């Protein structure tokens, strides 16, 4: 006789939602970069260097940076307002730990839903996690920028490493924020 039992898992919520990316500008010239930083390690150094280099090479108009109250939570409401009111494109991260990488990916998806082109910067170690979150939320294949070793995932970098990393991700960030 057959034994009938029940599936213990929840269905991915993304199965019932449609995800679409925000329209991209042709270039970053004149855009304002939102930075939704999670405060992991010394990753702010990388974001600061990235904004500086994008200003220098791409004529970025300016930037709005917020540092969230903990590594794996949404921004406070006033931080979210500051970014969504002030930025026209955005970066999130740094995705260097399990919960912070996925939360930063969620920040990027939320920005897209708010009409702001975004990209999350993720360490290669956390790629399976952010891809899983994207699948869960119906955003399978959503592009992001990865960095890898020898830089450690938890962002314990010095200033030179952070600056070099910003230069390393520059092309990928530009590519994913523009059409």
């Amino acid at each position, binding site marked *: 006789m057959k034994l009938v039992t029940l599936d213990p*898992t929840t269905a991915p919520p993304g199965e019932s939602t449609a995800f679409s990316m925000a329209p991209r500008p042709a270039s970053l010239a004149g855009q304002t970069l939102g930075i939704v930083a999670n405060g992991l390690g010394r990753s702010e150094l990388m974001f600061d260097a990235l904004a500086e280099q994008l200003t220098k090479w791409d004529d970025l108009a300016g930037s709005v940076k917020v540092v969230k109250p903990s590594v794996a939570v949404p921004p406070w409401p006033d931080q979210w307002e500051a970014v969504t009111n002030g930025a026209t494109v955005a970066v999130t991260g740094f995705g260097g730990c399990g919960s912070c990488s996925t939360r930063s990916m969620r920040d990027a998806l939320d920005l897209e839903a708010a009409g702001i082109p975004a990209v999350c910067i993720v360490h290669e170690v956390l790629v399976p996690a952010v891809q899983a979150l994207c699948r869960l939320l119906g955003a399978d294949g959503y592009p992001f920028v990865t960095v890898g070793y020898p830089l450690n995932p938890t962002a314990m970098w010095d200033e030179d490493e952070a600056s070099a990393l910003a230069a390393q991700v520059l092309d990928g960030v530009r590519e994913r924020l523009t059409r």
Partner: protein
Amino acid sequence: MSLRSATVESDGWVEAVDAYIDNGWTDGLPVIPPTPEAVEAMLAAAGLDGTEALGEIPTRSLTVEAEKVAINAVMAGCLPDYFPVVVAAVRAHLQPLANAHSTTATLAGAAHAVVVNGPIRNEIGVECGQACLGPGFRANATIGRALRLVIRNVFRTVPGVLDRASFSWPLRYSFCFGENEELSDWTPLHVLEGYRPTDDVVTLMSVMRYLVATEFEPEPEAILGTLADTARINGLLVDEFVGDARGMMVILGPEHQRRLMDAGWTKESVRDDLFERMTRPTAGKHDNQVHLAAPENVLIVCAGGPGLAQSNLLMPHLAAPTHERVVRP
């Protein structure tokens, strides 16, 4: 009662267990196959409809419904009478300050301690004394395991995918125990938190570090000093999100408790003393301030058995200890 989950057909009990393991729905150990009848009995024991929402994980856009929690409680081996405690544990973990996304996806692999207070401990057999943190007690083992299976299957936190624990640890199989309220007239944890002595309450604590503090000297000064020094080895940083709600837990062993009681200490005075010692400014590499907002953030639970003069400290992940009353129909 109508259940909405998809069904799985197997040729028999053993085949069903194998199918659940093969599908990645267990902790690696065999489970009890969750038949609709068993799941309905679980829900009935808590007076819940399967569609009732117990909470959400906003980062994952997940709503946790009672039916899925009941299925996982059956799989864990819970008796229906345990289910109200499981529900309270899940609700506690889904409170915003419990930060469920963070504590389940983290590299650090936080464990989740479920502490039970109130009369239900004795009614369902939650062990509070000898060896209560280890194997051998069905209520402890299966309630803690049920929460972990919910985290895996309902929160969708699969190791190597959304669960990024670098090592994880054995406390993640199951971590549930009760407070030994009958050992003394000290105030139970849930009463200190504002509940009535007759209330049944679950406290949920996401644990980053489990520290053992052994002190054989009988003087309270030595015991309290060792407890505080142990916490101060790594200390505790401020987290803006958790803020003043951040707390740590002392599982005070009976040998230490007896010495302190004999010297006239109460749980409240122990708490105040430890707070003062632990929150002193950092003095060196291995002597770090434990940043807590108030003595009330030192949660003291009396548990364990006689013999070894030991207590245990649970240092938190990026979450606050949360409490939830157990609701029985």
